[in-house]
Each structure stands twice: as structure tokens, then as C-alpha cells.
């Protein structure tokens, strides 16, 4: 049974329902946007990142599954807190409902705050050129629909990030900079989705190495360690 790939580090997506967690992951893993329906429980994905296997847990945002959040978060190396930029409440929920779930995460867990669905805002105009290699065939359609005034701005996310550090009793100087860890994405157009996941994975790698050095198990058990070959081989397999 030792032949199976054991995950080296865990990344968890948290956030209210309908903010687009599954869509983000779907965009990243399958390179396309697809209408999804509500996730049940949590879904587990394995992503080869250089020599490492990063496990990603896409959790259900529904309150029904709230009790499970801390289970999915256990030992997580990174937590991606996701909100919808058009929905203030979804940002508030991150602090009210989801932050406490991360208590079971690894003590040096990295936090990223992601505002999704920027394609629906009036700032959408900037999207195509910044991410013109986005594989979606026609981002045009997404821009025709009436744009709403963006409800949540990056500054709000940055403020939340700082409060999270405080909650975690972390010094701002030791943690990654807020500006670096707050993202705005669009799963629909693909805008900054890769950037988000790649940034997070790159930051998880040193944690994996550190944990290995300390011999800490990240998840249930780690039966085999592949010796860390090169620190970072850049991109996905």
C-alpha cells in the first residue's frame, strides 16, 4: 500500500456558498469554466507541484457542512479564504464563520484572501488585457452584461488579512505581506487564477520542507518521503 502518493502539503479553500470556490479550482485544474452546483462536504484534489504532491480541499460553503470545516482544515499549510467581490456579506462571513475553522490548521499556516467574480464588476474593462492569454474563448460575453458596482475592495480584504494575523497572534513582520496575499480573480475569465494558486503553492513548498525537517506529519501520515530534489521546478506537471 505504500505505493500511493501521499500528499506533502495541504491547501484548503474556504468561503461562503456561491462565491466560486469550486469554479476557481475547476478553472485552475481543468482550464475551463463550467457552471457548477453546490458542493457537498469536501472534494479532494491532488496537484503535482514540482516534486511535491499538494493536496487541495475544496469545501462546501453551505452552513450544513460547517461542522466539518475544521476536519478539512486539520494540518493545512495554506488556507484560501474566498469571497465574492459583489457580496459584502461573503467577506464578513469569512471572519464570522470561517476563520475559527482554521484553528486546526498548521500553526505556520499561510492565509490568502481571494475576491472572486471580478468579471461581474464595472472594473471588468481591465480584465482582457491583463490576462489576454486567458483560454476562455470569449470573455466578451461576460462583459456585455450589466456591471454592478463592486461591493468589496481590496482594501477591505487587506484589513481583514491584518485582523486575521492579529487573531492568529502573528506579527505582521513575520507573515507574508497583506498586499501579496490578497487577490482578486475571475474563475469565469481565468483572470489571475493561475497566479493565485501558483503563488500559494510556491509559498507552501518551504513549509513542506520545514515540516519534513522537523518530522511533522501534515495529514494523517506520511509513509514515504521522496527526497526533495530541486527546491522548485517552477510549474505544474
Amino acid at each position, binding site marked *: 500500500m505504500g505505493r500511493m502518493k*501521499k500528499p506533502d502539503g495541504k491547501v484548503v479553500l474556504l468561503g461562503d456558498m*456561491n462565491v466560486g470556490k*469550486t469554479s476557481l479550482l475547476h478553472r485552475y485544474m481543468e482550464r475551463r469554466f463550467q457552471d457548477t*452546483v453546490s458542493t*457537498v462536504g469536501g472534494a479532494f*484534489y491532488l496537484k503535482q507541484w514540482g516534486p511535491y504532491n499538494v493536496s487541495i480541499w475544496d469545501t462546501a460553503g453551505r452552513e450544513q457542512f460547517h461542522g466539518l470545516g475544521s476536519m478539512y482544515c486539520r494540518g493545512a499549510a495554506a488556507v484560501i479564504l474566498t469571497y465574492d467581490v459583489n457580496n459584502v456579506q461573503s467577506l464578513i462571513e469569512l471572519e464570522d464563520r470561517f476563520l475559527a475553522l482554521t484553528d486546526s490548521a498548521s500553526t505556520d499556516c499561510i492565509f490568502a484572501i481571494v475576491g472572486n467574480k471580478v468579471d461581474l464588476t464595472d472594473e471588468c474593462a481591465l480584465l482582457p488585457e491583463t490576462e489576454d492569454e486567458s483560454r476562455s474563448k470569449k470573455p466578451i460575453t461576460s462583459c456585455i452584461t450589466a456591471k454592478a458596482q463592486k461591493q468589496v475592495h481590496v482594501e477591505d480584504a487587506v484589513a481583514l488579512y491584518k485582523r486575521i494575523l492579529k487573531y492568529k497572534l502573528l506579527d505582521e513582520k513575520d507573515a507574508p505581506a497583506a498586499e501579496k496575499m490578497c487577490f482578486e480573480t475571475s474563475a469565469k475569465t481565468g483572470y489571475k487564477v493561475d497566479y493565485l494558486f501558483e503563488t500559494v503553492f510556491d509559498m507552501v513548498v518551504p513549509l513542506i520542507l520545514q515540516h519534513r525537517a522537523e518530522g511533522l506529519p501534515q495529514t*494523517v*501520515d506520511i509513509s514515504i518521503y521522496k527526497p526533495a530534489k530541486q527546491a522548485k521546478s517552477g510549474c505544474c506537471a
Partner: protein
Amino acid sequence: MEAADPDVPPAKGEGLEIPGEQTGPCPTETDGDEPDSVPEELCAIPAEPDSVVEEAGAEPDSVPEDLGTIPAEPPAPQSNGPLSTADGKVDAREELSDKELSDSASTDNVLEDSSEFGPPAVAVGGSGGPAGEEVVVPAVTTHRDEDVTAESWRKRRKHVFVLSEAGKPIYSRYGNEEALSSTMGVMMALVSFIQSGDNAIRSICSDDRKLVFVQQGPLVLVSVSRTLQSEQQLRQELLYVYYQIISMLTQVSITRIFERKKNYDLRRLLAGSEKILDRLLNLVESDPSFLLNAVRCLPLPASLRDSLGALLQKAITSNLVFSILVARSQLVTTVQEKTVIEDCRLEPTDLHLLLNLISATSAFQAGEIWTPICLPRFNPDGYFYAYISYLDAECTVCLILLSTDKESFYSVSDCKKRIEEGMRTQGYLQALSAGGSSQSPSYSVGLVGVPDLRHFMYKPLDIPENYRQLPQFTSPELESPYHSERERHRLFDLYHYLHSRIHSGCRPLRLIYHVAAKETLLAWVTSKFELYTCFSPLVTKAGAINVLTKLLRWIKKEEDRLFIRYPPRYSPTPNPGKSVKGGRSDGAENGFFAGL
């Protein structure tokens, strides 16, 4: 009478009047209808002597029922234990409810605009009736956005509502629950009014629709239906809805929530699950699995099914209780932990609800889902942890592993890897995906080789108890005349009708030969099987019987492919070497067709 000459009927022999369908041709059919239908219903297949007796017994009953379809429904009061007093008559009951509407409206301000619901649902017969055809409902973006004051909303074939005892809306199949809160208030008022008389409301019948009420703990479920389903069948559907809710939340937690806070808004917990319930309600209407309460297996060579079962049997870990392999939404095989099988078995209901939940949930192949799920018939208060993963890129082959241990994701995931590897190396996966064209999961009725036969549903009943077998059935794909949703509904209306006659609480039948407008149907139940068949309209009675004989012979020949006959199980300790074989060893005829 017509019975002697069954060749003629199709033209005028509308044994069954479908109010919603009788558009042009025969609006006055009711008159000519009754003499026809009596003998038709009566005609028994000579081969089965006892069925003649049963049929004769049924005669007096079948007359009024056939005629009046909905308004008559006289057996309702009888089956209506809890409803006492003057409720014996339908009219009386309607009056009561009418009065109830106004009464409570004046006392309880929740019901202020109860008029909105009053006229259409209870007294609606006249207004909605004549034009009550299956009006093509304008396509609304989603059912949630539907305008609940629109005529099209009222014309829906079947509404289903779920509300809390405090009258709070929880779910509506069409339209936003919020917009329906006053309507739901009225429903709750009806329920509690009857309750205050130490009674329970079960149903209200009007000209063209039935309202059925089911109360389960703190939840009230209401169905408002224009279909021909019996009260019993509608009740069963509501129970499916209830169980689906339980499968997500468990019974204890719902009870506990409402104990703590009577007016809790359960939608908070169910938010996002509406699609699961929507999908369930669509399925219930056109998937015989629900009507027959049995599982449809993917037709497979027995050897392949056995090998797959053996594979599941080997790939186990502690706390694994059920392993279920599904392809194209049909069961391939299922393996149970041995001690579990001794006191319980997997209920078809639980499997249906589980599969519905999975299909209504987003997934793509790379992901492995880990979620708590309750099997309400198995244990309404406990959670299993379900591991769900697709084995092929098209997401047609799905593996479900149920564990009792919340923390066992990684070890269960490892079982999947072993199963997947085994299937790949043996080429089983290709065999499963190639088992039919991707669109038709089952088989064509043409395989039976009788031209008059259009469709059938066959459920063996004589499964030996020691196998603790899942009730199963087999049924071909719906073909040409039944492609459209409308025709499918029509056929299933007929099946539902036959089913309700066969399973009528007060006067069950063994055999019905039923000539409908566009097809002829025959339903037959013996101690060995339950069978529903649909023929082309021109079949003769002798012809139909002939077809039945051929069909039964065909099923007998194919039974190893169509059914799981020797369900495997595994031992409680994850020791593949010692796992118990499914019982093939005793070699005895399992009796599926012993009587034929």
C-alpha cells in the same frame, strides 16, 4: 361486452380518463367510458385462476373509481384512519377546508392574504379544470424566479412544498418560498386546525387535483398534484422528499434544531440543496425505481459482475461498510460489510437518494468527494462518511464507499486506488463504459423480440430472504412514442394508475388489462413477480398474453445479466484472504423464476 372483443377498444375504450390529456378528441368520453372500462378491468388472464377471483371481487369498486377518476376517489376516507367525524364525504371535507381558510384568516394574521391560495387550490375545480391541459409553461430562467401569482404557476402538474411546524417556508418546487409564505401559512393553518381536533389531515381532493399532507416530526410536506397518482403514491413521494432532507441533516438534528427554536429558518441549512430536491422530484415522476421501490441494475454478464464484486470485496479497510459501484446511474454491484448485512441491508430508498444527491452535486473526474451522509432508512439519526469518486473521464463510472469513520478519508481513498488499478489492469473499466452507447444506459425493448411490446417493468419478488437482497427491477429504455417529456409523463401516469390499483389498500388487484387511448397496458402481480407492460394499441388480449409468455421467457433467459443474483459481502476485518464469498457455493436456484 367489450371484454369479449378486445380488438375494438382502442378507439373508444378509454378505460382511464386523464383529465389533463383529453384535449380535443373526446371530452364527453366519460359516458361511453364506464361500460367499457368495467369489463376491461375485469378480464382476467385465464392462466391464473385465482386472479379471476380477485378481479371479480374488485368489480364493484372499479366502476366508480374508473369513472370519476379524481372526484370520486371513495376509498380515501376508508384509508383515512385519523380523519374522523364528518370527513367521510369529500364535499364535507372541502367545505371544512374552505371554512377553515376564512376562519383562521380572521384569527391569525399570518394568513391575511390567504385568499391567494384559497380559491385556486381548494375550490379551483371549475376555474382551472376545463382548460387544465398540460399548458406549456413558459420557460423561466429558473424555477425559483417563477411568478407565483401567474396562471402558469397554478397550472403546474405538481407542486411540492415543505414547511416547518411554525409555518415557515422551507422549500417550494416552483417559485420562491419567500413569496409563498402566506400560502404556506394557510397550509399550516389547515394542518393545525385538524390537529386541534386530535386528528391529522391527510388529503383534500378537488375536481382536478389532490392535496396530500404528510407530517414528519417538525416538518410538514404538501403535494398539490394534477397527476393521476393515488394519495398513497403522492404520500410516498413526499416521504422521499423528507428522507432526502434527512439524508443531508439527519432526523435528530432537525428535531433538536426545532426544539431549541420553533421558528428556525431551516433554509439556512438547506441552502444550496434545492437542486437536489428539484432533481429528486423530476426523477420520482419518471423513474420507475421510485415507484417500484427497487434498484435497476446495469445489465452485465454475470461473470463480469462477479469479478467486479470480488474486486470491491478485496479492497477494504476497517470501518468500511458499503462499497457501491455505479455506471450511468445504474447499479453495477454492491458489497456490504458482513455484520451489517446480518441485521440490515441497503434499502433501495437509501441508494436512490444517495445517487440523486451525487448526481445533483458538482464533480469532475479529478476530485474525490468526502462528505457526511445519512441513509435515512438504515438509520435516520446517524451519519456515514461517503467517499465518492469517478473512475473514468466521462464521469459515467462512479465508486461510492461508505465508512463509519470520519477520519478515514485517506485509507478509503487508498481502497479506491486499488479498485481502480484492478479495474484497469483487467480491462473492466472499458467493459463498463462500452456496455452500451453512452446515451442509453439500459437496453432496447427490441431485444425481447416481440414487436407489440413497447415497454415493461419487471420486479422479481421471490428473492430468498437469506440473501438479504436489494429489491431489484429491470426495465428497458423508453423508446419512440415516449421520447417527449409529455408522453413520458402520460405513460407514467398510466403506470402509476395501474400500480395504485394493484396496491390499492382496500381492494388490491392481481391483474389489470387496461386499454388506454394510445396504448394498451397489462399489469400482473403474482407471488413471484410484479410486472407492468405497455403494448401498442392494436394488440389483442390473446396477443398480449402471448407476448407476456415470451417476455417472461426472455427475462428468465437473461436473468443473470439483468439482476445481481449473488450479492457479495465482506468480513468485518480487512482481511481479503478470508472475506466471505457471496454464497454462490450453495448453488441453489435462487428462485427468481422458480414458478415459471
